[in-house]
């Protein structure tokens, strides 16, 4: 679905992303992890066509991205930012209706089909009944759900999400993650929580603007790699309730205050 070859991106003479290549298969959930400033967001924005790569080549559904109109990209691919806010007094329905933008123009006005897409998108994120609520009255988790509904109203084949759970409490983090997995779309998601990253089909690890590891989570998240990238020591535990692997993180230097998550 997505094929990136040797992508790099420079800003102000400084290389933010170095020759990065990856592919995302249809229906696959790819997680991007890495410390702050490692280039996750930049890579996502390149994949979304929001930034133009300084060099390299990008294909979306077999077509070169730089030859596609912004509008055609938006019909195939939806992007959910970390935190997109507005001071306008809009309703939930207004926000989700924005997702229909790439399908409408002055000659093709709003129709009942668009109404159906909006209602369906709201139902998929479990926000039906919220249509008339004001944006400012929503909680952070609800706002992120509405953003995902807006993205779904675009009827995309690919979803890109930039740390969508970053500002949420643990309950909403888990429910948004579950929601994203249940969408069954080709998905690229930047993540902070390494344990949440374990449920992705494949993971890409970003470090200093490079993709340094790429593959299934179990094979990639080795103690050596985590020590190098995140500067933490990892011990692995097994959850007795379902046998899944849990990582416990400790500072590299034991003499520092021990805090485990």
């Amino acid at each position: 679905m997505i094929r990136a070859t040797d992508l790099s991106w420079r800003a102000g003479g400084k290389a933010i992303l170095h020759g990065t290549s990856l592919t995302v298969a249809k229906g696959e959930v790819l997680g991007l992890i890495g410390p702050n400033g490692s280039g996750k967001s930049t890579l996502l924005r390149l994949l979304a066509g929001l930034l133009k790569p300084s060099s390299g080549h990008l294909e979306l559904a077999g077509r070169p991205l730089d030859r596609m109109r912004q509008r055609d990209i938006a019909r195939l691919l939806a992007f959910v930012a970390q935190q997109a806010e507005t001071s306008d007094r809009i309703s939930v329905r207004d926000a989700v209706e924005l997702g229909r933008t790439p399908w409408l123009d002055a000659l093709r006005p709003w129709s009942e089909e668009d109404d159906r897409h909006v209602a369906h998108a709201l139902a998929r994120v479990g926000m039906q009944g919220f249509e008339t609520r004001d944006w400012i009255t929503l909680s952070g988790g609800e706002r992120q759900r509405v953003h995902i509904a807006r993205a779904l109203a675009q009827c995309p084949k690919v979803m890109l999400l930039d740390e969508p759970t970053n500002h949420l409490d643990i309950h909403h983090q888990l429910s948004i993650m579950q929601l994203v997995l249940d969408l069954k779309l080709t998905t690229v998601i930047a993540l902070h929580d390494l344990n949440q990253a374990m449920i992705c089909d494949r993971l890409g690890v970003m470090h200093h603007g490079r993709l340094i590891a790429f593959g299934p989570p179990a094979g990639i998240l080795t103690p050596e790699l985590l020590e190098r990238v995140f500067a933490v020591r990892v011990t692995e535990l097994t959850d007795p309730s379902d046998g899944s692997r849990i990582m416990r993180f400790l500072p590299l230097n034991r003499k520092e205050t021990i805090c485990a998550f």
Partner: protein
Amino acid sequence: MTLALIGTRPRRRGLRAFHGIWIALILIAAPLAGICIGETRIPVSTVLQVMANRFWDAGYVLDPIDEGIIWSYRLPRALVAGGCGTALAVCGVILQSLLRNALADPYLLGISAGASTGAVLIAVVGVGAAAVPMSAGALGGALLAFGLVALLARMAGGGTGLRGAGQIILAGIAGSQLFNAMTSFLIARSANAEQARGIMYWLLGNLSGVRWDDVWLALAAAMLLLIVAFWHMRALDAFTFGAESAASLGVPVRQVQVVLILVSAMATAVMVSITGSIGFVGLVVPHAARFLVGVRHALLVPASALIGMVFLIAADIMSRIMIPGQTLPIGVVTALVGAPVFAVILIRARTVSR
């Protein structure tokens, strides 16, 4: 809420006809009021007879002075006021939406000041005071001013965030001051006393001496702006969550910004070259319209256009009857209303951002 949805979904035919009727009534009633009310009150029947004479050669026998006042003085004045109000209000909507800034308007961002400088340069340096070259000069000034203000805002670290919102307004104030000073400098250096007095009066926003040539220019500019704004109404909606979000919704952001700002600057320049810079319309009217019909541009653009038209015609009437025997510059009236409303917006903006 229900109102806010009307523009975006299929509605019943009866409702549409109802809206069509009252909008048409306002479109006729507002200029009519502008013609009838003034130092000498003219009955509506006389106005209608003059129109009948002019359009259909009805042959009513009328006082030629009344006819002259109506046809050559008050009607062009009312039409220019209406067109100008429409254009400034829609410019305000466009700038506020594109810049994600509740305080953006052509006046505060220095576009009007730049247009004034350009127009005065043409008038004083002597290409002549005909409407078209003055508009061209005004357009040059308007684009230069906006370019400088945008550049300054960017260099001062402005973006679309909260801090950026402050930066562009500060840059706009600096730009306005600079261009107003340049205008004064031009006048002091090149104009004689008589010219200087006339230009200063015009700069405050003035509809005296409006001719039919000006009417066509003003209406054409307002119409073009309105059409372009309508064409881009979904793109303007898409900026709700910022420029990046608009891009991810398939809006060619750079292209839309260039087209809309160019057309806004053009409309502002035309209006400034005819009436001088009239403040606060572009700022206040969009907020009033948002309060009434919500933030979606399918309704916000026409509502702002309509309110702007009525507001400026009303302001023109006020400017003629507030002081008996004297006409105030219309900019004075709009500022008298606009400044307090501006204060209210500032206070409300604070409570929202908390």
